[in-house]
C-alpha cells in the first residue's frame, strides 16, 4: 500500500499530537522519505527539543521531541521554523558599502576589508579601538571563539552582547544573592509547585510551552494557586487565582510588604535563616536578621499599596499563599523584573521571599528566572561573553581568574586586560564618541533593539565608524547601517550547543547546507582570526575542537560539565550541569546536598551556597526606588514594551514566516478604553507616542486589560520602532536598560476611518 504525501503529513501530524497527549499508539506515521535530525528550537530560552525533517536537502518539517523536557510540545513559532530558512530576505552573499549602497562582494574581498580595518584601528589607536557585540542566539562555540579572539587576541574587553539587554539583572540577582549565576532549580519544579508566583512575565505568550506545564500542574495538583503580578492583564492572568495590577516600577514595595507579612504572620523559617542566610545592605554583607526585621517594619501592606496603587489585602493574600506551611512555591519572572533601572534589586527581593521561608532547593520550591534567548545562559552568561566576564564564572577584574584563563589559553601573563569593558549601551556610546572605531555585530540587531535607538543608529553611521554585521537576514535595521554585511548560516545549517534556562545544554546538529554563500559564524570568526594573525590562538577546524577546549575551561569550576562529551550530547535529550564526569547523570537542583556533586551527601546543612565564602545566601535590604523616569504633567502615561506569542525579538525570523506575518506583526499601541475616551482616540486611530527622546506612530487598540494610565506596544515591528521612545537609563549594577518603563504622551494623528 502506498500513501500520498498529504496522507503521510496528516498521519505524522496526528501521531505527534496524540503522542503529546501520551497516546502514541493511536496513530503511526510512515517514515516516508524524511530524514529526522535532532535539534533545538531557535527561539526563546525554553530550549524545546525537536527534530528537523529533511527531504531533498531542504528542511520540510519539524516535530517536537517527546523525550525532551517539552514532551513533544512546541509553540506556534517553533512549529513554523522550516519557513525561515528559505525566506526571501535571507542574506546569501557578502555585501560591502560603496557610498550609500551595499553591493555584492566576494568573501575574499569582504573578509580582507574587515581584517585590514580592524588591524589598522588596533595599530593606530590601540586594542580598545575595536569591539564585538554578540548574541544570546549564537551557538556556544561561536561566542567562545569571539570571546577568545577579542579578549586574548586583540586584548580588549570591548566584548558585550544582547544578553545585557535581557538577562543581566537576573545574573546580577543570582550572583549577588548566591555568589554564582544561573538558577538552582529546574523545569521539573513546575510539576511539584503548589504556588506559582509569576511576576514580570507574560509566560503564556513568551514561554508558552512552560505555561502549558504550569496549567497541567494546576489541573493535577491539590489547590494549586497562581499569583500573577503584572500591571497588565495578560493571557497569563487567565489561570491566575490572584492578579495584582500595580503602578509600573512599584513592585519593589510589594515584595518588601510580602516579606513584612511573612514575618508578621510567623510564616518564616527561622531555622533556615539561622543555617543558610546572611544579610546585606548596599554592597556589603554586614547586617543581621534583626536589622532586616527592623527594615521591614516600615513596609506594611498599606504603605506598599499606597505606593503601588493596588489593594493591601491583595498583598497580604499573596504573602499568605506564598508562605503557607507545607506548600511549595516557585517564582517565575523575566523582563518585567530584569529590564529595569532597579532590576537587580527586584530580582533580589524575589530571592528574599524564598530565603526567608526556606522555600528553595527542594522539588517545587525555587526562584526560576525565565530566559529570553535560546543561548543567553549557555553561550554568553556561562561562557563569559560579556565585557566584565571570563569563561565559567570568572571575572575580568580578578587577577587569579585572568591567570587561570591565560594558562588555559596558553597566552603570556598580562595578555588579558584587567579593566572591564563597556556594557552594551556604553559600548555604543563609545562608538558615538569615536573611541570605538570598528564594531563587529554578530547575530543580533541593535539598530532596532537598543533603547533610545535613534541616538545609537546615528552613532553606527557616524563618519569614521566601521560596522560589520553578520546575520542570516538582510536588510535588517542594523545591516542597513553596516559597512560590511556577512551572510551567516542559520539554525539547522550549522552545528553547536545551546544552553537554556535550566542549565540544560543541548546539541543542534547540522541538518542541511547553508543557503547561498552563507557560512557558520564559527567559520567566519576563525577566518577573521587567521587573517589578523591570531591563527595560533584560534586553531579550530570545527566546533567539536572548540568544544574540547571549552570542556577544559569549565573543569573544576562550579559550572563543571566535563562529562558532556560531544558524543553524549548527540545522544542525550538535554543535560543539566554540573555534570563533572562522563557517567554523571547531571544535576537537577544545585546547592542541594547529595544532589549537587559539589555538596557531598554528608554535608551538615541541607543547602550549601558554595558561591559565597560563608556558604550562605544573602537577603538584601533593598528599599523601593522609583524608575529612572516617572510620569508627570507633560508626559502623563507609562510606556511599556514586550513580546507577543507569534513574534520574536526584531521579527527578522517570525515576520519572514507567512502565517506569523499575518498575525500581530504590526506593533499597535494598546491603551485602556478609559484613556482612549479621555484622549479622543478610537480603535484603529493613528496615534503618536512621544517621550523625551523621540516619537513613533502606531495604530491604537483599546484593551480592557491594559492598566489605566499606561501604553503597551510590542518590540517586533521593524517599521514602528518602539525603541525610539524607550529610555536608555540602566541599572547601576547590571547595566541593563529600563525598557519596561518610561513616561510618554499620546496624541491622535488621524482617524482610523480615514
Amino acid at each position: 500500500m502506498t500513501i500520498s504525501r498529504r496522507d503521510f503529513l496528516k498521519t505524522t501530524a496526528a501521531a505527534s499530537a496524540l503522542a503529546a497527549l501520551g497516546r502514541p499508539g493511536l496513530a503511526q506515521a510512515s517514515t516516508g522519505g524524511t530524514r529526522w535530525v535532532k535539534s533545538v528550537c531557535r527561539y526563546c530560552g525554553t530550549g524545546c527539543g525537536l527534530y528537523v525533517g529533511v527531504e531533498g536537502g531542504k528542511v520540510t518539517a519539524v516535530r517536537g521531541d517527546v523525550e525532551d523536557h517539552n514532551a513533544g510540545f512546541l509553540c506556534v513559532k517553533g512549529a513554523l521554523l522550516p519557513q525561515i530558512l528559505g525566506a526571501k530576505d535571507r542574506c546569501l552573499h557578502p555585501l560591502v558599502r560603496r557610498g550609500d549602497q551595499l553591493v555584492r562582494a566576494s568573501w575574499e574581498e569582504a573578509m580582507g576589508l574587515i581584517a585590514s580595518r580592524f588591524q589598522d584601528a588596533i595599530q593606530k589607536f590601540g586594542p580598545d579601538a575595536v569591539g564585538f557585540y554578540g548574541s544570546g542566539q549564537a551557538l556556544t562555540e561561536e561566542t567562545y571563539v569571539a570571546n577568545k579572539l577579542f579578549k586574548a587576541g586583540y586584548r580588549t574587553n570591548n566584548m558585550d552582547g544582547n544578553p545585557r539587554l535581557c538577562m543581566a539583572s537576573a545574573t546580577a540577582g543570582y550572583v549577588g544573592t548566591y555568589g554564582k549565576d544561573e538558577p538552582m532549580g529546574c523545569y521539573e519544579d513546575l510539576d511539584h509547585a503548589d504556588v506559582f508566583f509569576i511576576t514580570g512575565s507574560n509566560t503564556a505568550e513568551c514561554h508558552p510551552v512552560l505555561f502549558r506545564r504550569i496549567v497541567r500542574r494546576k489541573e493535577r495538583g491539590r489547590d494549586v494557586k497562581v499569583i500573577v503580578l503584572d500591571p497588565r492583564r495578560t493571557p497569563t492572568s487567565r489561570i491566575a487565582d490572584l492578579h495584582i495590577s500595580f503602578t509600573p516600577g512599584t513592585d519593589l514595595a510589594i515584595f518588601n510588604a510580602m516579606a513584612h507579612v511573612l514575618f508578621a504572620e510567623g510564616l518564616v523559617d527561622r531555622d533556615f535563616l539561622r543555617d543558610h542566610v546572611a544579610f546585606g545592605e548596599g554592597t556589603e554583607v554586614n547586617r543581621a536578621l534583626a536589622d532586616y526585621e527592623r527594615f521591614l517594619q516600615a513596609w506594611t501592606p498599606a504603605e506598599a499599596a499606597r505606593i503601588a496603587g493596588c489593594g493591601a489585602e491583595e498583598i497580604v493574600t499573596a504573602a499568605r499563599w506564598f508562605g503557607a506551611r507545607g506548600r511549595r512555591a516557585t517564582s517565575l519572572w523575566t523582563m518585567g523584573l530584569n529590564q529595569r533601572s532597579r532590576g537587580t534589586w527586584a530580582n533580589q527581593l524575589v530571592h528574599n521571599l524564598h530565603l526567608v521561608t526556606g522555600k528553595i532547593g527542594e522539588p517545587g520550591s525555587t526562584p526560576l528566572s525565565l530566559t529570553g534567548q535560546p543561548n543567553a545562559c549557555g553561550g554568553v552568561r556561562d561562557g563569559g561573553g560579556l565585557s566584565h566576564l571570563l569563561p565559567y564564572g570568572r571575572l575580568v577584574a580578578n587577577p587569579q581568574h585572568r591567570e587561570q584563563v591565560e594558562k588555559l589559553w596558553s597566552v603570556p601573563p598580562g595578555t588579558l586586560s584587567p579593566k572591564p569593558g563597556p556594557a552594551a549601551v556604553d559600548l555604543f556610546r563609545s562608538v558615538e564618541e569615536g573611541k570605538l572605531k570598528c564594531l563587529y555585530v554578530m547575530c543580533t540587531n541593535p539598530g532596532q533593539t537598543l533603547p533610545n535607538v535613534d541616538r545609537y543608529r546615528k552613532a553606527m553611521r557616524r563618519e569614521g565608524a566601521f560596522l560589520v554585521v553578520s546575520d542570516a537576514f538582510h536588510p535588517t535595521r542594523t545591516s542597513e547601517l553596516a559597512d560590511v554585511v556577512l551572510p551567516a548560516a542559520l539554525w539547522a545549517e550549522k552545528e553547536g550547543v545551546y544552553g537554556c534556562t535550566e542549565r540544560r545544554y543541548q546539541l543542534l546538529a547540522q541538518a542541511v547546507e547553508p543557503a547561498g554563500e552563507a557560512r557558520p559564524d564559527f567559520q567566519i570568526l576563525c577566518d577573521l582570526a587567521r587573517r589578523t594573525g591570531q591563527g595560533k590562538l584560534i586553531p579550530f577546524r570545527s566546533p567539536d575542537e572548540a568544544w574540547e577546549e571549552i570542556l577544559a575551561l569549565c573543569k573544576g569550576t562550579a559550572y563543571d560539565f566535563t562529562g558532556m562529551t560531544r558524543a553524549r550530547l548527540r545522544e542525550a535529550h538535554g543535560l543539566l550541569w554540573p555534570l563533572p564526569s562522563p557517567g554523571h547523570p547531571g544535576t537537577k537542583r544545585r546547592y542541594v546536598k547529595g544532589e549537587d556533586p559539589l555538596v557531598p551527601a554528608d554535608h551538615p546543612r541541607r543547602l550549601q551556597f558554595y558561591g559565597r565564602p560563608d556558604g550562605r545566601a544573602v537577603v538584601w535590604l533593598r528599599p523601593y526606588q522609583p524608575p529612572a523616569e516617572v510620569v508627570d504633567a507633560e508626559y502623563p502615561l507609562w510606556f511599556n514594551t514586550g513580546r507577543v506569542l507569534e513574534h520574536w525579538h526584531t521579527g527578522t525570523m517570525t515576520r519572514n514566516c507567512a502565517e506569523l506575518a499575518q498575525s500581530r506583526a504590526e506593533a499597535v499601541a494598546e491603551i485602556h478604553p478609559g484613556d482612549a475616551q479621555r484622549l479622543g482616540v478610537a480603535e484603529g486611530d493613528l496615534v503618536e507616542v512621544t517621550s523625551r527622546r523621540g516619537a513613533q506612530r502606531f495604530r491604537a487598540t483599546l484593551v480592557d486589560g491594559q492598566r489605566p494610565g499606561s501604553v503597551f506596544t510590542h518590540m517586533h515591528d521593524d517599521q514602528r520602532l518602539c525603541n525610539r521612545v524607550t529610555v536608555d537609563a540602566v541599572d547601576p549594577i547590571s547595566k541593563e536598560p529600563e525598557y519596561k518603563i518610561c513616561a510618554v504622551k499620546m496624541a491622535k494623528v488621524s482617524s482610523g476611518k480615514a
Partner: protein
Amino acid sequence: MIVAGVVVETVEGAAARVAARLVEVPGVEIQGGDGLRRLAAVISAEDAAALDALGRKLVEGDEEILGVFPTYVGSDPEP
C-alpha cells in the same frame, strides 16, 4: 498546503464543548483527547494561516481555550 498537528488546551471540563466547536471549523480534524482538558487535532489548509487562525482567534475568542500548541508542522508543495 500546510498540515499541522496541534494540542488544544482547554479549561477543566471544557474539552468536549471545545471539540464540538472545533469540528465545525473547516480543515480541522479532531484526533482524540485525554478525556480531561486536551484535544489532539490536525489542521490542514491551502492557506497556512489556518494554524495562526486557531492559535490566535480561538485563544482570544474562546475563553475556554487556554492555548493551542503545535507538535508538528509539515508542508506539501501541492496546493
